């Protein structure tokens, strides 16, 4: 393959594979917690980090990492204070994030909207060597934390009250999950872009759960879908000379559509007979449970 002979493509592929694996692993917890749009908001906040990096000349990836993680903490603090004000705070932080990002970028001399676009929708050629190190480091951190706390997070997202009675620190875990989502957003910033990175967290999960029957199998299938779409989307965008973000996301949406159509007959059957073995309790039926 000629495309691997380009150094920048090798780096972009590493970054794409990384986000393809990690994003669905975080996304599945966000979907379970009914916070599917959280990644979107964290993307907005990370944009302020990018703007700040442009203005100060700092490296964009670590700056965005710090700003997004701080934004995540701020968000969880406000949410913990009040549930109703939490929803509003969510909106305010997100708007502030995108406005701050655009404003700071405009103030930075010599940075055009093209530079901003590369962060909004991803770009093949901008993944620098030191970026790869940051991305791999951040990715490894997310995976190690998931390996340690993943099961507790599963219990917490399934039912926070029951998890609390098992001694699980649900508030702290919730904060950790939001921070991990923020870090994941930054990992995906270079390839998928900040406006679309949330999609690669959520859409593979939505595709997988069309026909899976357990959390574990949903996670495995979602990672396969995420990885395939990221790598395939990146190479396609190289061939067609279009930004990688929209290509990857459209591929993932295509996967969702195929999965939803393929699973339609199964789901219709389930809907018609929602409790297949419950019916065996009817008079004359043999209860096998």
């Amino acid at each position: 393959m000629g495309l691997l002979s380009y150094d920048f493509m090798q780096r972009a592929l590493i970054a794409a594979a990384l986000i393809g694996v990690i994003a669905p692993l975080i996304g599945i917890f966000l979907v379970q917690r009914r916070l599917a749009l959280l990644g979107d908001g964290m993307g907005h906040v990370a944009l302020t980090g990018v703007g700040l990096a442009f203005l100060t000349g700092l490296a964009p990836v670590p700056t965005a990492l710090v700003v997004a993680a701080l934004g995540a903490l701020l968000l969880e603090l406000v949410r913990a204070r009040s549930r109703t004000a939490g929803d509003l705070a969510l909106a305010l932080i997100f708007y502030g994030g995108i406005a701050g990002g655009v404003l700071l970028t405009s103030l930075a001399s010599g940075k055009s909207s093209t530079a901003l676009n590369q962060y909004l929708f991803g770009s093949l050629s901008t993944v620098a060597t030191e970026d790869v190190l940051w991305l791999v480091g951040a990715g490894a951190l997310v995976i190690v934390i998931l390996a340690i706390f993943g099961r507790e997070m599963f219990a917490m997202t399934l039912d926070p009250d029951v998890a609390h009675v098992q001694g699980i620190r649900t508030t702290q875990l919730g904060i950790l999950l939001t921070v991990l989502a923020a870090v994941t957003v930054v990992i995906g910033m270079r390839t998928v872009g900040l406006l679309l990175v949330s999609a690669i967290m959520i859409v593979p999960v939505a595709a997988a759960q069309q026909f899976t029957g357990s959390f574990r199998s949903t996670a495995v299938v979602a990672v396969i879908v995420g990885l395939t779409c990221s790598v395939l989307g990146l190479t396609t965008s190289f061939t067609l000379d279009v930004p990688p973000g929209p290509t990857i996301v459209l591929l993932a949406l295509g996967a969702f559509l195929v999965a939803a159509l393929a699973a339609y007959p199964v789901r219709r059957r389930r809907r018609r007979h929602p409790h297949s073995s419950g019916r065996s309790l009817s008079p004359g039926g043999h209860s096998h449970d």
Partner: protein
Amino acid sequence: MTVALTCQRVCVDIEAACILSNVDLTIHEGEFVAILGSNGSGKTTLMRAILGLLPVTSGTVDLFGFPLKRFRAWHKLAYVPQRLHSAGAVPVSVHEVVGAGLISPRHRLPQRGDRQRVTTALEQVGLAERRRDRFDELSGGQQRRAMIASALAKNADLYVLDEPTAGVDAESQIRIAETFSRLRTAGRTVILITHELGPFADLATRIVVLGSPRGETSTVLYDGPPPAPDHLVERVWHHSEDVVMRGDEGSFLDPGAK
């Protein structure tokens, strides 16, 4: 006999409204206590305060001799809610729901024997054959049994159940009552929060009725052996019907008020 739970002069406010006041309750290990009350009587509030899910405005709650804030022996305690918060957002298998009961900061990683404990618990509630099925495809009663299995897998000393038979088919009700009959025999402590005893009428060793006698803040109206005084149970029964009817009309205000 060891004390499992002590509530002393417990008051709970929710958003400046006083829901419960001066609740005194001591439950010893091995007791099977039914906390009865109509909708709005504060029984769910009391349950959440006992579990540490709601802050107590004044008074103290002790679990196994420790104030809630310093209580760490969560493995001794199992809670069965009415429904799971996020069941169905992402597919979850019955096995995973039951196994989730075993996850705690002490047991971060899967351990040898977990699978066997889950299987045994599922057998106890008669759902062993459905362990691979999706949890949200079970009937309401089967879901409740799976959640009870999750508590059983934990092998706790104290079980707190929120309306375990509400909206549950007759067969599941009987199975649930059988399961808790075995727990009682094994000397476990059970606290049941419900608006009607149903299949647990023969199991409860003690009845606590919560309510507000003259429209003021809820408190303990009766605490003693079953059966509860008729006028109180009647009251519970009529109130819950009353609330349902009023709920249908769209006004769901203070069922305790006349």
